[in-house]
């Protein structure tokens, strides 16, 4: 295990220097998500700013349900520490081969299978320490559950891919691990599965994850012994041990993520009642998250359904930030990073004035 170190001063200095010289910085955590953030052409000019050494849990009092850790802390290490106190990260971020860091998870904003029930990553973000593009050290939010002092700059960092600041540390809301977890499996076609899920969504069932793939619907129920057994009975399922399945799904190690020759893998966040297409599809979040292999560009189709589609490949970051490719978003970017030195990418050339 590597030792915890505080690299704050070095990092602040590095950003301030880059700002003075108008030098671009490419922020890297463990590099576990490089497949989401392939450097673009302009990035080859950029200096690398590594956060892996800036690591360690700095404050954790389990009774407060909050943990604060430096951004280079690996999710694995963080989650192990929480587990020892019977707690977990509510948003179940993908761990990507165990190397993913907290900062990387927050910057990419990806939440796991429990998102509709446990909340998204951004919901759990309570505070950040960061460096803006002018090399200033800033703190927003804090360690308390309720905080409306100033704009919510902390949550704004979730999914911003480091474009608005270098995250130094993050305070995250934790949750007690459920006492019991059960998985029920149903052999069903996708349309029948969606129908069941729709009906269940209106009932107070202790469901905390759902996944339909390969004509099989898996449903995870979590909570107290009493409520889980009531839930299992109610959905008329047989409970099995699904731990390995949910972990594969969460870490994108499930076979569906690695199909060859099926076209581009798209990640669609859509209204749960969005119709199915005949392309290979995996459904999570009771219908609200779809993974679809398609040769087509699904962006417009998803917009028509009232949702969003992004290709989940090397271009994910750029595609995600391209949604922010309008004047307002560029002005927000410049409010934090006037010289546009943080994680720049070539495609976005918009005149903000």
């Amino acid at each position: 295990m590597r030792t915890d170190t505080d690299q704050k001063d070095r990092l602040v200095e590095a950003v301030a220097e880059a700002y003075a010289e108008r030098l671009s910085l490419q922020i890297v955590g463990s590099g576990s998500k490089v497949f989401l953030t392939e450097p673009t052409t302009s990035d080859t000019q950029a200096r690398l700013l590594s956060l892996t050494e800036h690591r360690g849990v700095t404050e954790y009092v389990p009774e407060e349900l909050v943990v604060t850790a430096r951004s280079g802390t690996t999710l694995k290490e963080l989650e192990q520490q929480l587990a020892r106190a019977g707690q977990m990260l509510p948003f179940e971020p993908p761990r990507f081969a165990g190397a993913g860091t907290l900062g990387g998870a927050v910057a990419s904003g990806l939440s796991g299978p429990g998102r509709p029930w446990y909340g998204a990553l951004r919901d759990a973000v309570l505070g950040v320490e960061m460096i803006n593009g002018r090399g200033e050290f800033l703190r927003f939010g804090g360690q308390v559950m309720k905080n409306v002092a100033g704009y919510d700059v902390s949550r704004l960092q979730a999914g911003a891919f480091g474009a608005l600041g270098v995250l130094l540390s993050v305070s995250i809301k934790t949750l007690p691990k459920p006492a019991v977890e059960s998985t029920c499996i149903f052999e069903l076609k996708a349309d029948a599965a969606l129908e069941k899920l729709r009906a269940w969504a209106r009932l107070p069932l202790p469901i905390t994850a759902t996944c339909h793939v390969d004509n099989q619907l898996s449903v995870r129920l979590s909570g107290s012994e009493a409520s889980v057994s009531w839930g299992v009975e109610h959905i008329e399922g047989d409970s099995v041990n699904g731990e390995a399945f949910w972990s594969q799904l969460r870490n994108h190690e499930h076979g569906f993520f690695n199909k060859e020759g099926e076209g581009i893998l798209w990640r669609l966040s859509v209204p749960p009642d969005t119709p199915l297409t005949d392309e290979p599809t995996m459904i999570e979040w009771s219908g609200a998250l779809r993974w679809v292999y398609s040769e087509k560009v699904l962006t417009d189709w998803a917009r028509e359904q009232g949702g969003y589609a992004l290709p989940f490949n090397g271009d994910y970051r750029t595609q995600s930030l391209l949604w922010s490719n309008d004047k307002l978003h560029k002005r927000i970017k410049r409010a934090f990073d006037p010289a546009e030195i943080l994680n720049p990418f070539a495609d976005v050339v918009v005149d903000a004035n």
Partner: protein
Amino acid sequence: MSRALVIELLRATLPKQSLITDPKALKPYESDGLTAIRELPWLVALPENVPQVEAVVRVCRSHGVPLVVRGAGTGLSGGARPHKDGIVLGLSKLNKILAVDVDNCVAIVQPGVRNQAISDASAKYGLYYAPDPSSQIACSIGGNVAENSGGVHSLKYGLTVNNVVGLQVLTIDGNFLELGGKGLDSPGYDLLALLSGSEGMLGVVTEITVRLLPKPPEKRVLLAAFHEIGAAADVVGNIIGQGLIPAGLEMMDRLAIEAAEEYVHAGYPRDAAAILLCELDGVEAEVESNVAFVSQLLEEGGAYDIRVASDPEEQARFWLGRKAAFPAMGRISPDYYCMDGTIPRARLSEVLERIQQFSRHYGLRVANVFHAGDGNLHPLILYDANQPGELERTEEMGGKILELCVAVGGTVTGEHGVGVEKLDQMCAQFSAAELDQFHRLKEAFDPESLMNPGKAIPTLSRCSEIGGMHVHGGKLPFPHLERF
């Protein structure tokens, strides 16, 4: 720009009944729930549809007129207090529930819809909207978004930001932002989170999509009485530390209990130094076992009287005193001032003790009635504005309480917002660079600062001025003022 010209312009676009210019008729709009701070605006516009909202925003933009958005005016920090040379844009007539979409478990509503109305409209499907501020029969969902309001049930079900999935926002430049939707995630910067709690500074929220949740099948409310307030505070941390998150966990101290009893006769034990109200929900068997578990913790923690309400009538009575606590104060004191700091739960008993010390020092009574589970304090300082100097002493003491909250690792406002009220305390919570970052962010949305100017974020010069004022004998009372 003259007032007369603006009125003329708006007469041409708004229906007659949507424009208030008569000083007498403007009076009810001179403040929000923070009635100590008042100002008469040039006029109040009450548009009936979104195009009329656009028209008002256009006039403000074109003629550089300050714009203050108003929902129901129940805010407690002066967020909706008018600008003396500006327009109040009241959204109370945009009060339609546009859809309850049962298949997607969402409701799409206009900003003027009352919080409670959403749950009422969803009840027939077994669904409800979870965040429930005590003001829910009156406050608007648009105001809830702008303040990121919480409620008794936020401990388990989250704040407004955690329960809103879509927003339509009109920015001062006349563009509509469509944020989120009926799905859960959207790409790009999380402007939905940024707009939550932005106090009418960044845009006008014109439509909201909220998540609806299934009603829990069973619930119980526990009432536990304590002889010592510190003991009650410690049990709060203990319950949550045991891994149990109640639907609600609220505390009232002796003065709050007394006032509530006088007002609504909820049947609270009058001899208690503090009571805890704890709501547990879920399926029958789960609720039963949790009631037993919590009762044991309460007893071990020193509760001398524990009551459990099982039927809805009795539960409503338990909550009645809590929900009526604010108006109840009005009956035992001519005026009261409500604070809103949040602190780590572990510091509850210590901070409550310090507040009592402040109370003795300033000679002002304080009642505490608050969201204990969240560590969100609401000390109510009782005063009489007709007594010379009392308001000033109250404000000073309030400031002390908030600075204490920051010093123990908390924040000056948990849910009521900064508004005009907590500008000075913001100087204690944030560094100059942080405040500057807020201003830059505001500028990205509203470069001419027409939306709610002067609110929410203090200017740097204001902070350095009060910084200067606080210096006594060359020593800062908060030497680490820059950052606690």
